């Protein structure tokens, strides 16, 4: 298939700040491929993020972007989508950004089920602040800040997304960009909140994650619309299984734009007259 807008055209001229070998590079490639596959006009994309290595991604894509503040990407994207339903809204960030400081917005964005794509590049570490435990880090991972490990059970993003009302839940791996690209296409085509957790290794602070290549496995070849089955899948998985865990048609929230009566401001002002 020849595409009028090539994947490369979605890549901006700005050079990523990422370390060589960082998993986030592949996420960028997979995303531009998916955008090209769908031929989404660049000027119709609103790409929003928070703060973190991963959150740098909007500037690397040729689109309208907003690199906001730590943890608030989903909130900003919800406002943008509400005001501009015609735009394709994409949100991206890290596991710290999305599940720790932005955890409340994650829950409510799932619940609102607005039509947008949310990619979390999960490397189980805070990369940008140089290697602290994130909500998805294993309890015994030792680092300077928590020398005994966090001693906390990891946060379960897919389970929380399911419980909170997200209508498309998937996991991908940055080491398999073509599968991820397909996943992102399906996520963008899905009407509603599409959450994709991408296992995206941090070469610098979690070098042991090179082993993910061996550990990742296709677990959910077929999606399900049964939340109970989806919950069983999530709990039965080792956190390394990829595919669409759950997809369902659920009510999508938007501002009730089309229901407005023909009122003008003068009529509103007249309400105050004695």
């Amino acid at each position, binding site marked *: 298939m020849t595409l009028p807008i090539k994947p490369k055209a979605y890549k901006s001229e700005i050079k990523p700040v990422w370390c060589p070998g960082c998993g986030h590079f592949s996420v960028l490639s997979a995303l531009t491929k998916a955008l090209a596959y769908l031929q989404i006009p660049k000027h119709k994309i609103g790409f929003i993020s928070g703060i973190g290595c991963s959150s740098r991604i909007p500037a690397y894509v040729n689109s309208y972007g907003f690199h*906001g503040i730590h943890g608030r990407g989903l909130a900003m994207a919800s406002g943008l989508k509400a005001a*501009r339903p015609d*735009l394709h809204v994409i949100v991206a960030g890290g596991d710290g950004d999305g599940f720790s400081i932005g955890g409340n917005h994650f829950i409510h964005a799932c619940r609102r089920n607005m039509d947008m794509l949310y990619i979390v590049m999960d490397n189980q570490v805070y990369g940008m602040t140089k290697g602290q435990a994130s909500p998805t880090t294993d309890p015994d991972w030792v680092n300077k800040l928590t020398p005994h490990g966090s001693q906390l059970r990891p946060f379960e993003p897919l389970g929380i997304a399911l419980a909170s009302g997200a209508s498309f839940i998937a996991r991908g791996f940055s080491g398999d960009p073509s599968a991820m690209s397909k996943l992102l296409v399906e996520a963008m085509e899905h009407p509603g909140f599409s959450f994709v957790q991408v296992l995206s290794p941090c070469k610098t602070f979690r070098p042991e994650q090179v082993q993910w290549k061996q550990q990742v496995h296709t677990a959910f070849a077929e999606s399900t619309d049964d939340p109970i089955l989806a919950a069983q899948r999530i709990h039965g998985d080792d956190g390394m299984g990829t595919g669409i865990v759950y997809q369902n048609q659920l009510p999508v929230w938007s501002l009730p734009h089309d229901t407005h009566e023909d009122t003008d401001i003068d009529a509103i002002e007249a309400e105050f007259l*004695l």
Partner: protein
Amino acid sequence: MSISSFSIAITGAGGSGAVTTGLILLESMAHYGFYGLLNRSSGPQIRGGESAVFIRFDDQEVLSVNNHFDYLLALDWFNIERFIDEIPLGQSSVVIYDSNAGAIPEVLQKSQAQFMPIDFKTLVKTIHKGRANMIGLGLLANTISLPFASIETSLNKILGRKGAEVINTSAQAIRLGMTTQQEAVSWPVRSLATHIEANKARWSITGNEACGLGALKAGVRFVAAYPITPATEILEWLSPRLEKLGGGLLQAEDELASINMIIGASFGGVASLTATSGPGLSLMLEGIGLAIASETPVVVVNVSRGGPSTGIPTKSEQSDLNIALYGCHGDAPHLVLAPLNIADAVNTTFWATGLAEQLQTVAIVLCDQFIGQSRAIIDQVVVPQWETSRVTEKKEHPQNDYQRYKITENAVSPMSIPGTPNCLFTADGLEHNSKGTPSSMSQDHIEQLKKRQDKLLKFDYGTQWAKISGSGTMVLITWGSSSAMVQEAAHTLKQDIKVIALRLLMPLPVEALVKELRNSKKVFVIEQNQGQQLFHYLHSYQSLPVDAHSFARSGPLPLRPAEIVAFIKEQL
């Protein structure tokens, strides 16, 4: 004796109908031709607790509280001590109370008011389903010789939802109250002044509604917010009306979300606003800094209440000035404006929205509970033809040379709105170069900091930066809701006094202010907070003479004109 200005307080336990009585009285007086200002107060209960309404009537627009109340209608004595500080009584004050409610509370015995017991219990029994508050309303109406015809219309308007039976019973009770007072003649009946140009259009509006209206008129079509007292009514008023105008309101999960949501919507090209109070403003600060740095216009209406922390949610204080001015980290120039009263809230919010859009920055509108939750009868507000539009980039840049943060003559750079082809950019809170690319280079930082400052300083704010009245060598400087009381104090002093009520607090129009103070001999800075926040702020710009006086006291009681007068006299 004919009266043209007086104040009435009505108090009662939860369910006694004190507030409804006040609202009916306000509307009735409006129909008769008077202006009025109604503030309310309530106990700590969420709903159904004791409450009080304070109404001042006048034959001219009145937006200040009086020094004392002429009448207190106490439907019972329930928790009256909670309100008594708010109801100063004088020698000529009349307290109408239920003779069955027990002894006059100690806190009231000290007052020199005349006490008029009424046997509400017996009176109520004569009307099937009758209520004491309506009898009380009748008593008051007769006392001031308000004709029943004026009450009838407002009765229908306010109690309409409750059905014909309630309206009839209420009308009966009001009539009974009116005749009872006639028979009792135990306190003086006065006659209302008649006047008023009948064809002058007048409004019944609250300050919160006024803020909402100003925003709508200036083009706000998206609101995201989290409920908080005393700002919630702005949101409740806006929600259905935004929808009617093709916009909408999104209830956010918290204030961290609401500020970021409106930044997102504004980035999308839609003028956007949020409303909150102190605790919410505190949570929004990081987002406000982002909007400033990324040059995304948003309006934040802060309806301030007693602080710090959760403070006094239901009562007023002008103590959020510091956070509005200085809350952000970094050098973060933005706009801070304050409406002077309910009528002015329409114009100031309109102006703030227009400025935010034109200057691509944050405008904080510092309102407060006193303005926000009070209802007034005012002349219809006509908004001046101020500019409200954002400069957008419509030209395509196929060479990819669009510079979102280009340094221009007036330091405002045309903003490209998503959907515009070949004009892409990524907005950023990270320091950036003129294209928006993140940069930590000193030259970019210095240039962009200057740009964000310059655009505010180079702008011509016209004469509306303050409402200046009178002239003289004595100058009273004030802001926000205290302005009305300061104005009245100046009037009472009957001297040549200039009053400067600041509407634009940031950027401070230093030059204009200094010019206004040039011939001053005595300067007073008057505000309702403990920390002398405005006084210190003005001093920090060396805009005040060194011997300027500060009159600052905390809320929640409104500054009363007499108290301001007394302070000024002490210094003379």
